């Protein structure tokens, strides 16, 4: 089976879905990177090249290069969705959600409810998350927990190219607004990706690795750090079960709870800040529903409660590392022994 990067997998998903359904449009800043101005029409295909080539195949009516105005992009996309199109809108950096959040949080997420179930809002918001490029505090955050907290929004956080393609196609076919979070350091990660279109259901976690000693739940880039930690821990005979929820809303609670009921020990790894986060949410879930199974305190490995530092060395310290994950696992593994 062909190996593809996350960037290629996302591009293929968009292309195949746009061929299948003419109501799908792409809208955002620089999604073509030059359309409507003098010079090359498809200069870049998005700042990270995910939408490269789409304007050539589908034209300017379906690949809409906008001015720098997130509120207009999200407002237009939400309106287009509720009136019959299926927009895939790009919010270049998720950090910018502040300027367009009314359109997302108070409009798109509420339409179905406010119109008594008569309105559908098949909107996908693709957005970049993640630290590690020294892009400083306003371009490095991972606010997927904010989107997850909003009833009416679904939230996807893929960790590999196979999941990215199947989850994006699922998001496009979903009749509710979906925020699709892409980690900016993972676009070149490769995996086997089928050429055919396929969907992965929301709310179905992926068990990345089987193990009986400690359950580790991790998202996006942290899945790979946890795997690195797992290889170290394995040498000492500690087998972690690694769960990638893939979607934070809906969340596959059963897979996490079943695993903790078996291992009795839980570590959650989240690149986002620790307060009111996915990590705290999952910790609360397990404390609530699997308390009797726990043999050790739940440990969270997260960023500290500070803005993301610009200085590369500080940023490196800020992001959870395989070493910190391994230390937390050893901690809960040894607890009470």
């Amino acid at each position, binding site marked *: 089976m062909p190996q593809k990067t996350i960037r290629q997998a996302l591009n293929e998903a968009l292309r195949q879905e746009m061929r299948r359904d003419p109501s799908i449009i792409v809208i955002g800043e620089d999604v073509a990177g030059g359309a409507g101005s003098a010079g090359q029409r498809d200069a870049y295909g998005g700042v990270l090249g995910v939408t490269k080539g789409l304007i050539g195949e589908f034209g300017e009516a379906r690949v809409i290069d906008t001015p720098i105005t997130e509120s207009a992009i999200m407002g237009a996309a939400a309106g287009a969705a509720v009136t019959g199109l299926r927009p895939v809108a790009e919010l270049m950096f998720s950090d910018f959600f502040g300027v367009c959040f009314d359109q997302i949080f108070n409009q798109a997420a509420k339409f179905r409810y406010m119109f008594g179930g008569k309105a559908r809002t098949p909107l996908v918001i693709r957005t970049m998350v993640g630290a590690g490029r020294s892009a400083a505090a306003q371009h490095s955050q991972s606010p997927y927990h904010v989107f997850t907290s909003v009833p009416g929004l679904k939230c996807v956080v893929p960790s590999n190219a*196979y999941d990215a393609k199947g989850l994006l196609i699922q998001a496009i076919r979903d009749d509710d607004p979906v925020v699709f979070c892409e980690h900016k350091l993972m676009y070149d990660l490769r995996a086997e990706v*089928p050429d*055919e279109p396929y969907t992965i*259901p929301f709310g*179905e976690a992926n068990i990345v690795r089987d193990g009986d000693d400690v359950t580790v739940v991790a998202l996006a880039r942290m899945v790979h750090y946890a795997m690195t930690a797992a290889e170290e821990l394995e040498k000492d005979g500690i087998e972690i079960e690694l769960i990638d929820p893939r979607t934070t809303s809906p969340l596959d609670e*059963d*897979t996490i709870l079943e695993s903790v009921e078996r291992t009795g020990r839980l570590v959650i790894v989240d690149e986002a800040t620790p307060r009111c986060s996915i990590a705290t949410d999952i910790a609360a879930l397990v404390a609530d529903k699997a308390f009797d199974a726990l043999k050790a305190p739940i440990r969270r490995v997260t960023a500290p409660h500070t803005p993301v530092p610009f200085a590369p060395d500080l940023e490196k310290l800020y992001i959870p590392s395989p070493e910190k994950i391994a230390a937390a696992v050893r901690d809960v593994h040894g607890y009470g022994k």
Partner: protein
Amino acid sequence: MTVTPITMPKWGLTMTEGKVLGWLKREGDAVGPNDELLEIETSKITNVMEAGENGILRRVVAAQGATLPIGALLAVLAPADTPDAEIEAFVAGFVVPERDDAAGDEAEAAAPREVVAGDYRLHYLEIGAGDGPPLLFIHGFGADLNSWMFNQPALAEGRRAIALDLPGHGGSTKALTGPIDSAGFAADIDRFLDALGIERVHLVGHSMGGAIALSFAGRQSDRVASLTLIAAAELGADVNAAFIDGFVKMERRREAQEVLRLLVHDPDLVSRAMVEEVLRYKRLDGVADTLRRIAQEWFPNGIQRAGWAEIVKDLPVPRQIIWGREDRIIPVAHAEALAAKLPVHILDNAGHLPHMEKAAEVNRLIARLIAA
């Protein structure tokens, strides 16, 4: 050589390592070629490895629970009179052979290929070489050529062994445009063999693939050198309709695990990776529709068309039937009803996948029929 290494086998294209689940013999035990030595878990399914030779199990090298690459030393067989020092030296000096794709083991070098046959692109894997009629494996409903991971390499010695993905399955064209009853798929096999320039074959078919093989042999018996039917469809009316329905509908890991466990006698054989592999196929656009159409054609109202039981009795082809006694998909009674007319082998502690659950035994039976 007096000392025989037992090494991690390669079962199937994707296997790179295996886990030693447990030893079935102890150091000092005398073993024969067909004695079960240990259980190995691959990413797909657990299987038993046989000794392959006569000897004493002198040294167990791989501990229970160890995950080791293909070719790694698991144990040492040797006659009783081989000195301990020689065994020590052998273990100490053992080097995992470099895997050389160009010249090495043919199963290692082989990659699946594609051929256009009629309206379909058919994906297939060929290994082995020889002058006699090739061996062709035909998988069952919803499966693919990987079904034969424990059989195809073992039966490819001195012979071309080919496993294909039926239309609608595996890596072949998913959208079905031709007839999809057993005769329709048999016509696809006919076109596949023509495209490969193959005149005569030994056919091995499992479940739905068994009925397809039988349909082919019923029409072109002169092209069939031998016929092995494993838990074949269309030899009786009964089929587990809940399984078929569940397989068509399942989308999530939990339901898929429940459904797939019906296939085997020991439910622990179904690994998470096997479930994931099936789901990856099922998630592809068009597959659910294809499977629903096949199920409606083959098992309308949960009942099989049972046209082949009479025909197989008098077929002028060397043939045999293999079935798991604990089959929960198609009852073993379908095989028992034919036992007076042709060789029927019913295997204990096996369900609907005897070629995986009792691979070594099934391989011996197939090899014997082919050699006859």
